[in-house]
C-alpha cells in the first residue's frame, strides 16, 4: 500500500510540474504571450482548414531556412527578421533545417501543420527541379504554397581573367570546336547553376563539362583558384569578384545596374533568363487570411527603400511578388523547366 501511495505521489508531482511549465512557458518557446490557449483553436493534424483567428498572429512565428546558417537565404531572413517582428507584432524565430539542397526543409514544410505559424524559405528553381529529378524528394512542387518572392539573383557566365575569350561569341566558338573541354563550375546538381548551363548548351549547341560544387563558396573558391575555366555564378558573386574575372553574359531582360558593360543572354540572341529566386512559402492548407497577412508583411519589407538599396549594393535584385503573382510565377517557371528537362530526355 505504501508503495502505491508513493507512486501516486510521484506521478502527481510530475503532472503538477508539467502543468506549471506549460502554463507559464507557453508554446514553442516564445516569450510568454498568451500561454497555452491558442493551440486549442486549430485541429490537431492533417491539412484540414483551421478556424481563422482574427488576432493572428498572436504567438511566435517560426521562419525556417532549409539551408545552413550563414548562407544567402539566412542573410536575407536576418535582414527581414526585425522588420517582420515590427510589422506582425510578434516574435519571429529563425531556425535551420539544412539538407538535400533544401529538400529536407521543404519536405517538412509540406507535412507541417497549416496553422500559419511556420513559414519556410523557398527557392526557384530548386523546388521545381528537385521533385523532377529525384525519385523521392519528400515533396512535390504543387504542394508548395508560395506567399511571396522577394529576391532575384540572376545568374551570369564568367571566365577566367586571363582566358583568351573576351566575348560570348569567342567562348561559344571554342566550345563548339572542343566539345567537353570547357569546365563550368556551379553549385549543386539540378540546381539553378546547373539548369543555366543546360539551357545554355541547349540553345547554343555546345557541350561543356559541368563540375558541381557543394555551394556557392566552394564554387567561387575553385574558380578563383583557376581550377575551372568558367562559372555560372550568382549575381552577387559576380559583383563581388568582378575584378578577378571576365563576365561574358548575364541573365535578365535588361542590363544589370551593377554590371552595365555586360550584355544579357537575350541581347546575344539566346532566349534564357537564368536566375535563382528567393521567397517564402507555407504548408498546404493554410487559411488564405493568414497567407495574406504574411504576404502583406513581406511586401512591405520588399518595398522598404533602405533594404532595397542594401540588396542592390550587394548584387541582388529586389523583387516584390505577392501571393497571386508568386503563384503565377511558380506555375510559369514549373512549366518552363519541366519542358526543358523533358526535351533533354
Amino acid at each position: 500500500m505504501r508503495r502505491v501511495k508513493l507512486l501516486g505521489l510521484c506521478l502527481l508531482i510530475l503532472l503538477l510540474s508539467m502543468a506549471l511549465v506549460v502554463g507559464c512557458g507557453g508554446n514553442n518557446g516564445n516569450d510568454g504571450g498568451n500561454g497555452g490557449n491558442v493551440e486549442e483553436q486549430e485541429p490537431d493534424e492533417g491539412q484540414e482548414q483551421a478556424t481563422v483567428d482574427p488576432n493572428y498572429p498572436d504567438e511566435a512565428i517560426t521562419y525556417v531556412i532549409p539551408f545552413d546558417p550563414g548562407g544567402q537565404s539566412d542573410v536575407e531572413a536576418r535582414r527581414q527578421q526585425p522588420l517582420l517582428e515590427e510589422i506582425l507584432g510578434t516574435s519571429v524565430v529563425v531556425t535551420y533545417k539544412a539538407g538535400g539542397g533544401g529538400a529536407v526543409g521543404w519536405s517538412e514544410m509540406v507535412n507541417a501543420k497549416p496553422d500559419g505559424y511556420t513559414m519556410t524559405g523557398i527557392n526557384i528553381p530548386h523546388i521545381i527541379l528537385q521533385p523532377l529529378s529525384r525519385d523521392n524528394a519528400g515533396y512535390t512542387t504543387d504542394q508548395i504554397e508560395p506567399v511571396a518572392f522577394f529576391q532575384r539573383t540572376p545568374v551570369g557566365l564568367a571566365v577566367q581573367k586571363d582566358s583568351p575569350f573576351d566575348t560570348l561569341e569567342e567562348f561559344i566558338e571554342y566550345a563548339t570546336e572542343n566539345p567537353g573541354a570547357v569546365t563550368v563550375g556551379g553549385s549543386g546538381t539540378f540546381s539553378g547553376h546547373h539548369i543555366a548551363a543546360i539551357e545554355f548548351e541547349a540553345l547554343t549547341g555546345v557541350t561543356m563539362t559541368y563540375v558541381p560544387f557543394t555551394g556557392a563558396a566552394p564554387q567561387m573558391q575553385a574558380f578563383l583558384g583557376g581550377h575551372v575555366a568558367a562559372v555560372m555564378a550568382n549575381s552577387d558573386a559576380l559583383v563581388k569578384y568582378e575584378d578577378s574575372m571576365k563576365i561574358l553574359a548575364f541573365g535578365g531582360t535588361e542590363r544589370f545596374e551593377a554590371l552595365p558593360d555586360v550584355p544579357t543572354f537575350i541581347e546575344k540572341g539566346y532566349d534564357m533568363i537564368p536566375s535563382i529566386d528567393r521567397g517564402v512559402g507555407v504548408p498546404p492548407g493554410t487559411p488564405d487570411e493568414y497567407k495574406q497577412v504574411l504576404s502583406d508583411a513581406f511586401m512591405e519589407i520588399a518595398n522598404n527603400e533602405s533594404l532595397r538599396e542594401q540588396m542592390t549594393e550587394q548584387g541582388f535584385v529586389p523583387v516584390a511578388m505577392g501571393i497571386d503573382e508568386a503563384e503565377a510565377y511558380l506555375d510559369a517557371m514549373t512549366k518552363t523547366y519541366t519542358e526543358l528537362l523533358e526535351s533533354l530526355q
Partner: protein
Amino acid sequence: MLTNENIFSVFLLAVCAVAWNSLANVSYLGSFFPKVIIVVLAFFTIIQLVIGIKKPKHIKTFDGDRQIYMFAMLLGMIAYVALMPILGFLLTSMLFMAVFFWFLAEDRSPKSALKTTLLAVVVSTGFYTLFANVFLVPLPKGIFF
C-alpha cells in the same frame, strides 16, 4: 569458429551485399565512389574473417557483472525515444530519468524514489526551458505537452 568476431564479419559482408544492390539504379558517377568503398570494405572484412577462422579470438561482448542493467538502459532508451513523439519531450524525459535514477541506484527505497522523481522533474524542466526559450529549439510536443 563461431566467435562473435566472425559473426560480425559475416554481418558486415551482408551489409556490403545489401549496399551494392541498392546502388543498382544509380548513375555511373554517383555510384563509383560507394562501389569502390564497398569493394574495399568487403576485401578487408574477408581478410578479417579468414584471420578470425584461423585464430579464433573469443571476445565476450555481454559479460559485465551488472549486464542486465545495460540491457535495461538500452530498452529504456529505445522506449524513451520511441515515445517522445507521442508523449512529448518533457514527459518522456521526466519518466526516463525518474525511473533510471531510481533503478540504477544501490538503494532502492521509496524515499529515494521520491528524491529521484523530484530531481528528474527539476532537470527536465530546467533544460527544457533553456533549450526552448534561450536556444529556441522547438522540442517535440506530444498529446499532453
